[in-house]
């Protein structure tokens, strides 16, 4: 029987809903957990990061303008698509993380469930984090959570899919758009997630995924004047995390620092990540006839 050469995938960036190569033309070798060659991934540059910010900024108002119900459905649809490709995600996680097929399957299960959990929050955040406020005067006063805007995130280095999902979903469910730098040595599940997002109903630019050296890319994002917040979850180097937090002060970015101890991504996430990337707007109006 004649052997057939398989078609191999080119792993690219995901910016504004499209899959460009790095503008720099660079790539880097991605190995599996045993050190065998897996793929050449795009090595994102400063220019790619800035393009991603531009895409995220232009997508943000429309994403927030959609009804919460609509955002919830769009995010739920993403979970459907991950489920449909679960075999591919399991393969990716097995090769990236070197875990057993059974463990990879449970990570994919948890990632899908996590995504569904966050999707359901879309039309509940305002009820849980908002309020009507009994002020001492004839005024109607209410507070509503609103998105911070454009968030730049460094995804966890170890948990290549569940960790990534656990960082991205709470940012976008609140109406923000995101530029996420995928796990540096385990980027392939992130590229597969990009393929899911591209064929789901999530508007281009809402999620932008960069692969490469996060220590090279993240300083450009931390000091970018059009980024409103930083999620440093995947930054393991304390010195770099501190420098990024210093850079973030240029426009008073909100900063979610790296966790003090390695998180167990299977744990109940709670509301902290959603809360970190929403603002509160309070509206006053007189009451009278």
């Amino acid at each position: 029987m004649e052997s057939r050469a398989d078609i191999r995938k080119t792993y690219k960036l995901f910016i504004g809903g499209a899959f460009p190569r790095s503008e720099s033309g660079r790539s880097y070798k991605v190995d599996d957990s045993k050190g065998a060659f897996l793929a050449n991934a795009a090595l994102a540059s400063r220019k790619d990061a800035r393009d991603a910010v531009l895409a995220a900024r232009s997508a943000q108002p429309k994403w927030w303008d959609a009804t919460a119900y609509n955002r919830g459905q769009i995010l739920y649809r993403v979970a459907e698509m991950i489920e449909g490709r679960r075999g591919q995600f399991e393969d990716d996680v097995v090769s990236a993380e070197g875990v057993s097929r059974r463990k990879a399957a449970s990570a994919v299960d948890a990632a899908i469930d996590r995504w569904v959990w966050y999707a359901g929050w879309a039309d509940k955040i305002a009820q849980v984090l908002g309020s009507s406020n009994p002020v001492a005067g004839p005024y109607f006063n209410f507070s509503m959570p609103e998105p911070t805007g454009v968030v730049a995130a460094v995804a966890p280095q170890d948990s290549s899919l569940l960790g990534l999902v656990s960082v991205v979903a709470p940012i976008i469910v609140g109406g923000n758009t995101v530029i996420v730098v995928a796990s540096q040595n385990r980027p392939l599940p992130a590229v597969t997630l990009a393929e899911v997002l591209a064929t789901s109903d999530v508007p281009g630019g809402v999620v932008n995924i960069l692969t490469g050296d996060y220590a090279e890319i993240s300083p450009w994002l931390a000091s970018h004047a059009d980024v409103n917040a930083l999620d440093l979850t995947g930054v393991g180097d304390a010195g770099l995390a501190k420098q990024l937090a210093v850079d973030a002060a240029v426009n008073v970015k909100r900063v979610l620092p790296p966790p003090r101890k390695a998180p167990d991504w299977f744990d109940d996430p709670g509301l902290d990540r959603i809360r970190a990337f929403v603002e509160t707007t309070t509206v006053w109006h007189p009451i009278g006839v």
Partner: protein
Amino acid sequence: MTFEYAPAPESRAVVDIAAHYGLFIDGQFTDPIDGGAFKTINPATEEVLAEISDAGSADVDRAVASARSAYKSTWSKMPGRERAKYLYRLARLIQERSRELAVLETLDNGKPIRESRDVDVPLAAAHFFYHAGWADKLEYAGLGPRPRAYGVAGQIIPWNFPLLMLAWKVAPALATGNTVVLKPAETTPLTALAFADICQQADLPPGVVNIVTGGPATGRLVSEHPDVDKVAFTGSTEVGKQIQRAVAGTGKGLTLELGGKAANIVFDDAPLDEAVEGIVNGIFFNQGHVCCAGSRLLVQESVADEVLDALKRRLTTLRLGDPMDKNTDIGAINSREQRERIDELVKSGDAEGADRWSSPCAIPEKGWWYPPTVFTGVTQAHRIAREEIFGPVLSVLTFRTPDEALEKANNSPYGLSAGIWTEKGSRILWMASRLRAGVVWANTFNRFDPASPFGGYKESGFGREGGRQGLAAYLKSGGH
């Protein structure tokens, strides 16, 4: 028609200002170890009111150590319902001593007695009363069943609302179980020192509240102290950024309430008489020394002339002068330095081609003053449209459509507050969800309440003060 008013000065007999004040550490007034002293001045008369201690590094060490020890031994172990009682006591004492506090505030700050009496002091008491009730209900704050205090909070407050800003900082910190090292503003320490006396009268356990007076160097010592767990700052964006850099990577909690350049947007269907009152209140309240002041008036082109005529007419009736006079509308500028900053920005407005109009009011000979001033012909590129003036100076721009108003309002690195004047409810709600501002006043302006969260977007800072949302500034979420 002009109305003449007989002078109606509030008596200062109610206050007894000491010649010298120590620092308030561990429940006692104490002289600084390695610090010196500085003078606090009545900005309306340039009279020296008192000599104030300048806390140095050993003093801040003592204050933080006292706060730490009070946190460990007393405050963190006390049930919430007991903490609440101390906050209720503080609220009551502020109410009981309200006249004294109002006079002290006006003497030290220069704001009209009418404002310190009717706004600053009652709201300060209300903040303690509101937060007292939270102390034993923190599991309902929305931060999980077991939210935890940070520990020692280092708090730095500005001079524009000295006692009120103290209340905004101290009340939630104590209610949530933190202890406090507070640095009042250099030019307005007196009501904070009176509050220290109130803490003694309330038998607040020593070290729960420590007050270290001083300038920017003392502020840095507080915000950079390694044993402070949480830093809360209200002040300029420039200093806020310095603090954010200093706190980066330390694991400390941080909330910042910084500058603003609020748009006050008047549509052609607004009730114009009310809008004019709102514009006046928006920018001339407290001499414009308000971070959320409506310093950019965006008025729809079709009513611009009408609004400006009415505004100027109204401004000529404002009475500038002795802040202790109960009829005074515009008091003194808080310091010579601030007056110079206002003047410098006003001159930039002249130089960049905007048209200046100032109310033709008499300016007292002594003290620091600035007449209500309105710039027309302002473009978005002018410094007076972009930079926070923090004085009684209004920049007027016009717009034609709601989209243009929104675009101009959001065209600022700041995002603290905004005003909307229109009779159309749907437009208010449309604007409110698109304005990048933490507080939106619709058909009103400059309203404050302890139940109402306050704080900014973008370079106006992060975190909220007041309301359930404000508790998150002093609590770590615990459990889910």
